[in-house]
């Protein structure tokens, strides 16, 4: 699965503070109070708080988050190109795709 260079550059090194699973989406809050929202077709696996993002891989309907501790999760996204949003602590857009 190829790396999403643009998204990786945005969130690499950020530590996961908490995750919220809602109907149709996964919300990840990072330690810098930025948030990443992923529209997902299924309930995503749990992410351990404190893990840091190493890279984001994306291919078709699959988006994988790799963490610095070696773990990773794969999320089924609803609409490639329109399922991931990252906003900074001031709610300004950092990434959409």
């Amino acid at each position: 699965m190829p790396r999403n260079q643009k998204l990786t550059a945005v969130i690499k090194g950020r530590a996961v503070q908490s995750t919220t699973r809602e109907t149709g989406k996964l919300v990840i809050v990072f330690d810098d109070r930025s948030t990443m929202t992923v529209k997902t077709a299924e309930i995503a696996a749990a992410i351990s708080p404190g893990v840091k993002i190493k890279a984001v891989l994306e291919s078709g309907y699959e988006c994988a988050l790799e963490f610095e501790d070696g773990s990773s999760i794969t999320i089924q996204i609803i609409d490639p190109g329109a399922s991931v949003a990252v906003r900074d602590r001031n709610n300004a857009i950092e990434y959409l795709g």
Partner: protein
Amino acid sequence: MSRRNNWPPVSLGRVMRTVSKVLLALCLLWNVGALAQQPTPFLPYPDLTPGGVFDVTLQDICTPGYSKKVRAVTKALRDQAYKSYGITSYQPGEYQLDHLIPLSIGGSNSISNLWPQSNNTSPWNARTKDALEQRLRKLVCSGQVDLETAQREIATNWINAYQKYIGASPPVAAKSEPLLAPNVTTETPPGTSAPNATKNEVWVNTRSGVYWKPGSQWFGKTKQGKFMAESDAVAAGYRLARGTGY
């Protein structure tokens, strides 16, 4: 013992039928190939490209640099868009992978919002749509047009939107027509100011696609043209006429 006549080994009728089938197959292949290489239509196919938007606010899209941040089309999506329109090969610059609802007014990178738009069709092409996109962003960010309205109108029929927000037809610079040869109907002294012009307006020759500033020779003088703000003329795709002294 009688010898069976085996010559010709295959009857002439059979040969003709085979040749006919081969020719028919070649014709079909040629037609399919020709269709595949047809320029894309002025408008995208609504079933393939209905349009798609991000969940964004007016403040988001009107922030400088917004479009650059959100432009992210993967190669897979790009290939899928071309393939869905039957385009298997193309020359550099022949098409532009267009966001039907432009990123600048909240369009997404979803396949539902992407289509290969020809740069070569006339008068409606990627360049004319770009002018509309610039105009719509300006109108939306200045509060003159509602964001959802702009998104809906450009997704439904961007040519109608162009005619509504810019003008009846795009500037067409005919190849055979020199840009410095406007259609003059009356001979007037060069530099005469046009009576209907307001300050900071230029005269656009809607036929040749160039515009003239006040004081230049053909300002307000060509058969087909209109006054408009220079920024709007540039946004609409008009170019400053050469030889105007500016």
